[in-house]
């Protein structure tokens, strides 16, 4: 007993040590650096913050736009999650891969895609103008709240689809059948049985979406224009444009405190809401598309996904080929070192860099996430263990609610000198990515781990399995499916992460988003065209990676 408790204690050290080294230490460094640039505390930033109603309005806007975006995303994606969870159809794995692509795209690319899709000169507007004989473009969402909401739905649809859909797929359908036989009509079954059972998964997904929208940066900055600012945008403006580090740091602190409070409340709620479920393998819960009703449900949802998620991407691809009468011109140009620059990196090298970083991130995030989620899902017998869990859970999520800009600066300031000099290390980028990715792994794993019936673990224990063996033979095997979802998230997050990477990636080893950003920074149609071409490449790589992971399932693992 004592020995196994020691193992558990050691296991707690792994995520805590990682967070201490690569989150709190850099964060602390940047905050002290910002508040006390010359070694003397400078509170002027905080005073300004409290004294101004502008920042209160910024906070309020940050909250309500995030809440509205989350609500819209959940409402739109739940039917899709049902279709993915309960139906089997041929295009499913392809659609699954395609719908996850938006999630990984850098905001600059998405902004371009939306402009290509719904901008004043887009094909949609041109078609409507000629159809109705209009002078001006009828759809003009540029710099309105609508384009922000739309972009947030675009980004986060896949989060709800994956988490809720994956959970739904393993939900015992017999419970719903039981409710039907007890006289519940389909609507009652939905509200009384299905939704309450799905609640932990929906909660987890909605919560992630909220955090993303709360810390939304590129979408607000580029699509929203100067009229809109979230806390994160304000931090960026203060840091980069005005170089007002004390104020930026003060805003960072407000953001961190706010998100941590949210995370803490949420994790308490989630641990309470989850019930041990009798999970079924998906071949038992899923049915084929047969009746007209099935076709209608599946068809309408797939159509929505195509319109909402794929149209902007297709518009982007189309534009990368047609801009300025282009053809393959911009793609060919990617391989030419026009500037004879020593910093020139062939695009193929950026692809290799991104894939390498993503692979390391997946390994790190899965390892850390698995250990952390297993610790959190442990049935807590003692008061102290329960307290430790209640603390660890929101702590793990904290990196998600922290400004990427702040974090990137923190990495540069803190990790470039002894005792921890990683400045020249290739590990710096995957470490930053892991910080953002492994909370996703934890969130994907937790509902599945908490859903395992305690008797399964006890049965293994009675059959002679040590605590470690129980974990390996029961928990690990059963959550294979969730592990896979987590891997996809980690991979795609690493592929698309931009904010922190832009600051910490070494000039000779850019990732795909950084390379795109470099092209966008240069003037002229040639560079813009190349940015579009490279965005298309990034999409392609992500799609291929996603399909690969989807097929990279061995034997029984992933059946669940």
């Amino acid at each position, binding site marked *: 007993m004592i020995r196994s408790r020691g193992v558990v204690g050691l296991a707690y050290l792994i995520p805590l040590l990682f967070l201490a080294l690569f989150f709190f230490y850099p964060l602390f460094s940047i905050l002290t650096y910002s508040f006390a640039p010359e070694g003397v505390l400078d509170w002027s930033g905080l005073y300004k913050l409290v004294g101004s109603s502008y920042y209160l309005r910024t906070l309020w806007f940050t909250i309500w736009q995030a809440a509205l975006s989350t609500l819209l995303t959940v409402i739109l994606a739940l039917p899709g999650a049902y279709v993915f969870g309960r139906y089997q159809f041929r295009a499913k794995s392809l659609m699954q891969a395609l719908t996850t692509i938006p999630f990984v795209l850098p905001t600059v690319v998405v902004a371009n895609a939306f402009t290509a899709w719904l901008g004043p000169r887009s094909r949609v507007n041109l078609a409507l103008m000629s159809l109705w004989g209009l002078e001006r473009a009828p759809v003009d969402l540029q710099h309105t709240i609508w384009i922000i909401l739309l972009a947030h739905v675009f980004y986060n649809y896949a989060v709800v689809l994956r988490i809720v859909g994956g959970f739904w797929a393993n939900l015992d359908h017999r419970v719903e059948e039981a409710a039907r036989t007890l006289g519940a009509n389909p609507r009652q079954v939905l509200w009384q049985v299905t939704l309450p059972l799905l609640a932990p998964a929906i909660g987890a997904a909605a919560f992630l979406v909220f955090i993303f929208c709360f810390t939304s940066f590129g979408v607000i900055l580029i699509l929203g224009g100067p009229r809109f600012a979230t806390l994160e945008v304000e931090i960026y403006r203060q840091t980069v444009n005005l170089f007002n580090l004390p104020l930026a740091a003060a805003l960072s602190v407000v953001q961190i405190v706010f998100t941590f409070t949210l995370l803490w409340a949420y994790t308490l709620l989630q641990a309470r809401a989850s019930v041990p479920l009798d999970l079924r*393998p998906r071949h038992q819960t899923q049915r084929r598309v047969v009746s007209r009703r099935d076709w209608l449900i599946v068809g309408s949802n797939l159509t929505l996904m195509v319109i909402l998620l794929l149209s902007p991407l297709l518009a982007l691809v189309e534009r990368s080929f047609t801009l300025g009468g282009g053809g393959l011109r911009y793609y060919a140009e990617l391989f030419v070192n026009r500037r004879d620059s020593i910093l020139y990196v062939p695009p193929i090298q950026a692809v290799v860099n991104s894939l390498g970083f993503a692979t390391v991130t997946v390994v790190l995030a899965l390892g850390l996430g698995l250990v952390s989620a297993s610790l959190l899902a442990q049935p807590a017998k003692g008061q102290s263990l329960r307290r430790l869990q209640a603390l660890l859970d929101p702590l793990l999520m904290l990196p998600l609610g922290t400004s990427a800009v702040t974090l990137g600066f923190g990495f540069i300031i803190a990790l470039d000198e002894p005792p921890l000099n990683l400045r020249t290390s290739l590990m710096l980028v995957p470490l930053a990515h892991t910080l953002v990715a492994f909370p996703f792994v934890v969130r994907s794993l937790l509902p599945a781990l908490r859903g395992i019936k305690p008797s399964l673990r006890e049965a293994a224990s009675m059959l002679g399995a*040590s605590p470690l*063996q129980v974990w390996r033979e029961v928990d690990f095997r059963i959550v294979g499916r969730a592990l896979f979802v987590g891997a996809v998230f980690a991979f795609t997050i690493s592929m698309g992460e931009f904010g922190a990477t832009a600051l910490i990636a070494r000039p000779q080893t850019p990732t795909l988003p950084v390379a795109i950003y470099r092209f966008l920074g240069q003037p002229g149609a040639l560079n813009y065209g190349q940015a579009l071409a490279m965005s298309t490449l990034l999409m392609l790589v992500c799609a291929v990676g996603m399909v690969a992971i989807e097929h990279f399932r061995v034997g029984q693992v992933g059946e669940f």
Partner: protein
Amino acid sequence: MSLLEIRDVSKTFADTRALHGVSFGVDEGEIICLLGPSGCGKTTLLRIIAGLETPDGGQVLFRGQDLGPVPPHRRGFGLMFQDYALFPHRNVFDNVAFGLRMRKDALKAMDLTQKIEEQVREALALVGLQGFERRSVNQLSGGEAQRVALARSLAPHPSLLMLDEPLGSLDRALRERLMNELRDILKGVGVTTLYVTHDQAEAFAIADRAVLMNAGRVEQVGSPEGIYCRPATPFVAHFLGLTNMGEGKVIGQGRVASPWGELAAITDNCRPGDRVSVIIRPEAARLATDNAAIGRPVAVGDGCLIYGRLVARSFRGGRYRLEIQPVIGPSLTFDLTVVGALPVDLGDAVTMALDPAGVVLLPA
């Protein structure tokens, strides 16, 4: 000395006392049933013996050794769960092989895989599931899942097998069949078994001895016949379905005053003047109204007749359960085996002839 010794075990959950100083012993090769209504603490006791719960007080000794510091996976016991807890991500073979693989260091065989395969096959043959090795456990019927769970707990040859309501979720016909089969299998293997159930018929069919529990205490320990014939307390009598019970007093050799009048009874363990609980067994009476109908004459002694009216009856297949409202005393329930139709109708006056051996007296 007993193989397993439960010594004064108590357990409290939050604010409810689940076990109050429970003690008893289990001998090698014995099948013991823990019998009692739900919530009486029998499952808690089982989980304490398994090591899944820690007792607040008392000891569990196995071969004289205190199990307190031994974690569940080192006890070498088998536990079959009420919901079977089959691993949904493994097929039948891998479920049964699980325990063997966990203890493989103990096997010390050169050809481990072959040995495991052998033992799994053996265990599956024991429960009559040959050829089920590759099946998914999600495609098993209730009875099959029960057998797989049994095979899984038997395969590593546990030194003590515990079964928690193993037939609880099965249909009646299947239950009746599996009850006898289960006893044959357990006796065939010779494994010491603790069997938890709330069903008296199940307990009596399977057990060598039963431990009857109520509200966290042991009410009676004994053989099924012993408990049924001589229930130690009114609770035991009631639980066993002996509901024809009332307060009485021994008034002489073989005579007792009861709510139903003076009755003939066996008073070997009592003296005149003792206050007792009087129990009339439901199978202790025959209809005396029409001797011809039951095919043999009724020799009725003094104090062996009860006069009343038939107020309810239900057909139980081969026998009837009758409720009689006697002229004096509370209503009585009797089980009657009748060939053909019951010769009396609802509302008819009936006379019941009692067998004095079926009138049980408990010291009050």
